[in-house]
């Protein structure tokens, strides 16, 4: 199994690599288009800000490459949001793989902090990404923007409103939470992705 983690200015690349190693896998961290294209699985991580990340991808033509990939691709957190059509974070046009919109959380309830930070339940699973994951399992989230519910939603969660915890279209998968930090549930989801 040849897994590639796309190297760009994202904060959680090492964490994703270590998570793979914990389940006995390994991965190559690279922004080399040839290596990315020839991988069996591609992980597109992400912690950071949307417009800066898109700028970085464009400078390396990764904005053209990623949507053309044919093997299973997993976007994590900002990675998933960048696979959507547009983000309200600095009004950023994204990769357009998923047609869901990325919006900013807004609330007037002081008890609901933004960003959401911590463990929340995920439910209404579709697809094999969630094989052996019980409904209402807990996953670790850190985000101030969310992807709305749409045709590509394959898992949901609730914070201020119901939104997409995960998206899927063809070979492209995205999760808003951090499987690399979500204990055994996260490890199962990573295993499921590798097994796709």
């Amino acid at each position: 199994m040849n897994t590639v983690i796309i190297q760009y200015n994202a904060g959680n690349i090492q964490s994703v690599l270590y998570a793979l190693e914990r389940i006995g896998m390994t991965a190559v961290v690279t922004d080399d288009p040839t290596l990315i294209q020839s991988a069996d699985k591609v992980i597109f991580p992400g912690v950071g800000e949307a417009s800066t990340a898109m700028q970085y991808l464009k400078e390396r033509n990764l904005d053209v490459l990623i949507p053309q990939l044919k093997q299973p691709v997993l976007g994590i957190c900002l990675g998933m949001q960048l696979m959507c059509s547009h983000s309200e974070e600095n009004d950023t046009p994204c990769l357009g793989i998923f047609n869901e919109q990325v919006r900013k959380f807004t609330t007037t309830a002081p008890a609901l902090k933004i960003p959401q930070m911590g463990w929340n339940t995920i439910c209404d699973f579709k697809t094999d990404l969630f094989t052996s994951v019980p409904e209402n399992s807990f996953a670790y989230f850190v985000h101030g923007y969310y992807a709305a519910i749409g045709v590509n939603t394959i898992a949901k969660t609730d914070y201020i409103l119901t939104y997409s915890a995960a998206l899927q279209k063809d070979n492209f998968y995205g999760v808003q939470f951090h499987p690399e930090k979500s204990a055994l549930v996260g490890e199962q989801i990573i295993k499921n992705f590798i097994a796709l």
Partner: protein
Amino acid sequence: MLTKRIIPCLDIKDGRTVKGVNFAELRDAGDPIELAALYALQGADELVFLDITATVEKRKTLSELVNKIAHKINIPFTVGGGIKTEEDVSILLQNGADKISINTAAYMDPTIIKSFAKNFGSQCVVLAIDTKCEADGHWYVYLNGGRQKTDTLTTEWAKKAVDLGAGEILLTSMNHDGTKQGFALDITATLSSTLPVPIIASGGGGESAHFYDVFTTGKADAALAASIFHYKELAIPDLKQYLNNKGIPIRL
């Protein structure tokens, strides 16, 4: 539903856990990685590692330890202790830390909060505040591990830090720390209800009811404790079951 977080804190010196731990099931009670792994297995929601090493070799020792922790632990963790520069932060994050915590250095030079937030994201910048309620009834900021008083009100410093980009506040009440008589509910509630970021309450947790109080009356988003977990006075699964039974949203 987003759950309240239970966070064990490990004090580290020269790569080892200090403050004493007492776990029969651990081969080496001083090994922070083994202790952290046990807490993660028991259901800790996050971990905090506070490095109190005072030697020049510290940075290298700490980054190596963080790297080992990151390989082993499958939940988020924060690292604090002596972080001053962007390079300090960068090394720790590259070695797998999810967040860093800053205290005195941020007070002495608040611009580092802004630069850390800009370069690494607010979500990884935890501002730790040691605070004490004085005879005048106000809560003041203390520095250098509680040894140095300032004239700054905790509410003012916390607001300024959040405006600069701090993503979370770790609030330790010196009046309560070590007493096991409960958390500082009033100042925790004040910060939590006036600031848009999560508040981690620390200091005073001695029994399950104290955690219930800090999540309800204290409006805390997370609660941190050290010795009660290390000495097995309170087991994390029992604490979380208690809170769940009392209707607090908790990850079981």
